[in-house]
């Protein structure tokens, strides 16, 4: 295989020595034994062995492999992807308007970013989703577990207890109205204790801990294969202060984003992170924009911006690969994240009338 040595993940020191010894393509290395290689190039035997292993792994010596597989094993056609997507679930937020504009809820295998000013409800949404991901499948949920990485310390267990209790009560109401036994059976395992025990909580105090924790997550996911949601509450907080080297920050953030999307894709789970807002001043006016810079805007697949409009909370779907831009109202009640006009929700989520219109009429009636 005429593949340049620079395109292999080799250690830089080894690569420099290989190039200075005159080797340029992988073909030339394939015929050598490790001892010959280490003698010619001047590297240790272990390094030579590792190098040859890396190169042999990437280009199989047996060329007939290509006759059966057109492109590598990770390849699939868009038709197969479509079939996979049809069976994939969404994590509902209990705010049907928001679920509608997002196409059903928070999608799996994608990264979603939630930006908002302080106090608008980002952490509330994260806690609600950590509870909602555990809803059994017969009620329209994905029956998964959640990992919560907290950098700001804003995770309140008492609040999660409130949310979980409200969710359990809500599902009991729905199960009560249906006579089939499967709903009751599913609810046997869905209690406050089980919900709380399936949220894995990690507290990260600075960016090093956050990066280390994300690095260790793949091993954790192998042991806990039912995890369907990773929440990073406050990805901006550890990166926004005490960072002199901005290019390092960009590099670390981009690497983090790629690790998270690769986990989302490989383990079929949803990744959510929350971001803060910062003020941008241009043309004599100031705007609130998401923090961490322009390059961070490209990191998430889906971006949701929560903001205030006088006394009301609005959610705008700002960036999505398959849904149109839209804005809806939402509310945060004692039971958690809900629609503005509280109405009994029942799965499957029915297409609701535009809640904005309803609230305007309500106001006109006053």
């Amino acid at each position, binding site marked *: *295989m005429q593949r340049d040595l620079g*395109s292999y993940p080799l250690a830089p020191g080894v690569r420099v020595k290989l190039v200075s010894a005159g080797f340029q393509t992988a073909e030339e290395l394939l015929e050598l034994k490790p001892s010959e290689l280490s003698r010619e190039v001047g590297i240790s035997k272990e390094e030579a062995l590792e190098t040859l292993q890396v190169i042999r792994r990437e280009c199989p010596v047996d060329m007939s492999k290509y*006759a059966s597989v057109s492109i590598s094993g990770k*390849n699939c*056609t*868009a038709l197969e*992807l479509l079939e996979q997507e049809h069976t994939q679930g969404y994590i509902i937020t209990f705010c049907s308007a928001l679920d509608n504009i997002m196409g059903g809820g928070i999608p799996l295998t994608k990264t979603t970013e939630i930006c908002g000013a302080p106090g608008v409800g980002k952490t509330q949404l994260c806690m609600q989703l950590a509870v909602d991901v555990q809803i059994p499948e017969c009620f329209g949920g994905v029956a998964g577990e959640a990992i919560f990485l907290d950098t700001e310390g804003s995770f309140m267990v008492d609040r999660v207890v409130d949310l979980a209790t409200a969710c359990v009560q809500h599902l009991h109401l729905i199960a009560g109205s249906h006579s089939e036994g499967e709903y009751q059976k599913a609810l046997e395992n869905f209690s406050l204790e089980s919900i709380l025990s399936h949220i894995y909580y990690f507290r990260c105090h600075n960016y090093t801990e956050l990066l280390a924790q994300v690095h260790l997550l793949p091993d954790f996911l192998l042991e806990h294969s039912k995890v369907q949601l990773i929440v990073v509450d406050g990805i901006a907080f550890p990166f926004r202060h005490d960072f002199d080297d901005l290019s390092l920050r960009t590099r670390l953030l981009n690497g983090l984003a790629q690790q998270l999307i690769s986990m989302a894709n490989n383990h079929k789970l949803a990744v959510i992170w929350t971001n803060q807002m910062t003020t941008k001043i241009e043309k004599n006016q100031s705007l609130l924009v998401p923090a961490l810079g322009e390059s961070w805007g490209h990191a998430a697949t889906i971006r949701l911006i929560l903001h205030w409009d006088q006394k009301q909370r609005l959610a705008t779907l700002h960036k999505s690969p398959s849904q149109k*831009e839209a804005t809806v109202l939402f509310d945060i009640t004692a039971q958690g994240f809900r629609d503005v006009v509280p109405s009994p929700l029942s799965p499957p989520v029915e297409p609701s009338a535009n809640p904005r219109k309803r609230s305007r009429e309500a106001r006109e009636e006053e």
Partner: protein
Amino acid sequence: MGVLRVGLCPALTQEMIQLLRGIGIKTVVDLVSADLEEVSRKCSLSYKALVAVRRVLLVQFSSFPFNGADLYEELKTSTAILATGIASLDKLLDSGLYTGEVTEITGPPASGKTQVCLCTAASVAYSLGQSVLYIDSTGGLTASRLLQLLQARTEDEEEQKVFRVLPGDPKPCFQGLVGLSLPLLIGAGALQRIHVVRVFDIFQMLDAFQDLRGSISQQATNASGPVKIVVVDSVSAVVSPLLGGQHSEGLALMMQLARELKTLARELGIAVLVTNHVTRERESGKLRPALGRSWSFVPSTRVFLEAREGPGAPAGCRVASLTKSPRQPTGIQEVMEIGSCGTPEQNSSLEGSKS
């Protein structure tokens, strides 16, 4: 050009290589550029033998100059222009994406880069019936959106009674599709021509290109024909974790990737479409494409997308500006609608659609 090995030419024996190595000539470059009289004196090899070896090596490793007229003839027969399916973008690109070249779409977040990529993939797979390799590094590919775009296209063509199930198309896998409408079935044929590879770091991306080369060189019977376009969304997602910092390995890897893209485009006769992010310049606050000046020489055409500013702008409306092109004047702009990319409502409002 690499290390001197026994198999390179018949006259080059193992003992000759050892003698040459003894005086410090290890690679082909060393031998070809050395003074052969001195070499023959130092290693006691015959001068004629060395000259013969050098001639063979030069023939093997040097490239030959092309006559300009021959090059023009070759390009005329081998270059194809693939329409992206968005009429205004095709106008900007001088009727579409040229094979043998790398085209870049760049813009701020939510400006429509992924939509352009999806639309192009749908258009090439459906209207032109060619295979597409879609390399996704951001998770932005949703097959249901692709299907939406294809359906909009098939409904339009159904009215003109044009069916696009080409001879030699593999029968679409009907298991999940029984009972669906005709446009959906036809769209399924096009979906099978779009191959998706999900990569999340640069080595995986380089592996994917290597596999593509392997499959094409082995002429593996890919049932839907050879790949005609490679869409990479996005290239900066895998490269930006490497750039910056004190060591320049990241830059070297980026240039490896650049070289791979360009040689793929040229050697295999395919069009390459990449997307790039933007960064903000520190002094002037203007937006410019990411990955720096070194990358700016890689694509031959660059398009900048942004949302239309202003209160009266309809959602989904984007302005595409041409910032680099070998054929068109830069600075020209076109307005496009990303919600319904390239469907009849858009085509009717612009003259002369070519797809």
